[in-house]
């Protein structure tokens, strides 16, 4: 019986490290939801957006602020208008569960893109920070080097101007 108490005490001590304030996971439900989201996104599938992102999500895209899920969806669709192909070269993510109850996920993705107009193949290295509340992402911050994208958007816009009116 003493041994049982000893084992229980050992488990209790192992699980209550006073020098930690949270744990990091990468194969939990929330992390997997975001892996699915990115994989569906490159296939232009937006069906599950509502089950991951809050309707009133705050979006910070390179320090430009947007609100609500419709802005997020239209933003995501924009990239598929510019690029004929978007592929994932590599990705890494992890979710932080802090003792104060807050949950956030960091995701790093390297996208390979092919421009619809120029056929240029390039890469976009993006960093995403998701903040979760009650199972939904309520804040999303995205950082990436916008220079390449700005050039591609200009080309895209000029190609629209040159299109004949009507069919």
């Amino acid at each position, binding site marked *: *019986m003493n041994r049982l108490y000893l084992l229980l005490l050992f488990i209790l001590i192992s699980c209550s490290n006073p020098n930690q304030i949270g*744990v*990091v996971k990468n194969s939990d439900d929330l992390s997997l939801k975001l892996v699915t989201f990115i994989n569906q996104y490159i296939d232009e599938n937006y069906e599950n957006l509502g089950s991951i992102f809050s309707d009133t999500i705050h979006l910070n895209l*390179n320090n430009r602020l947007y609100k609500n899920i419709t802005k997020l969806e239209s933003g995501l669709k924009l990239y598929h208008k510019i690029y004929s192909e978007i592929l994932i070269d590599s990705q890494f993510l992890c979710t*932080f569960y802090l003792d104060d109850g807050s949950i956030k996920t960091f995701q790093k993705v390297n996208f390979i893109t092919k421009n619809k107009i120029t056929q240029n193949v390039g890469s976009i290295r993006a960093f995403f920070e998701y903040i979760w509340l009650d199972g939904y992402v309520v804040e999303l911050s995205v950082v*990436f*080097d916008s220079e390449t994208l700005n050039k591609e958007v200009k080309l895209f816009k000029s190609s629209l101007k040159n299109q004949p009116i009507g069919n």
Partner: protein
Amino acid sequence: MRIFFIFLIFLFFLTSCTSDVIGVVLKNDTYSSRVIEIMNDHQESSFNLFKKYLDEDVFIEYSGKIYNGKQNLIEVWKSEFYYFSDVFFDKKEVFTTFNKDRSYTTIFKANWNASGNFTNNSYSVYSFYEFKWKYDRIFEIHVHWNNEPYYKEWDKLIKSNKYE
């Protein structure tokens, strides 16, 4: 009783090995304090503390560009002050994780603010730094940043040189 005891030990090791936890977030750790000091020094264009903790073979991935070696890294960080003044970080957040492979990673997240030396523009850029530690030295850094301020300053510099 003995069987029950053995079962409990078995269960303990089984759950430990199948845990999806890949690290823990540390409280009041030394690495976070060091990174805060390094980034405070950075605002003052001072790199002594940074040099002290950099491994000779440090590798940095800076917005998709890769630099190798301590000296190269210092030169890259110094070059920031050729283009920008009044560099300061706000909305700072720093924490360190102890990872399953027994390495440490310090995350520094902040808004980088500065004035452009050539355009006089004010910039505020959300930035994310990841410092990886081994044997008490930083051996890898990943920086996620929008380089737009650099492009604007370069552009202005090139245009102004043309008309000199």
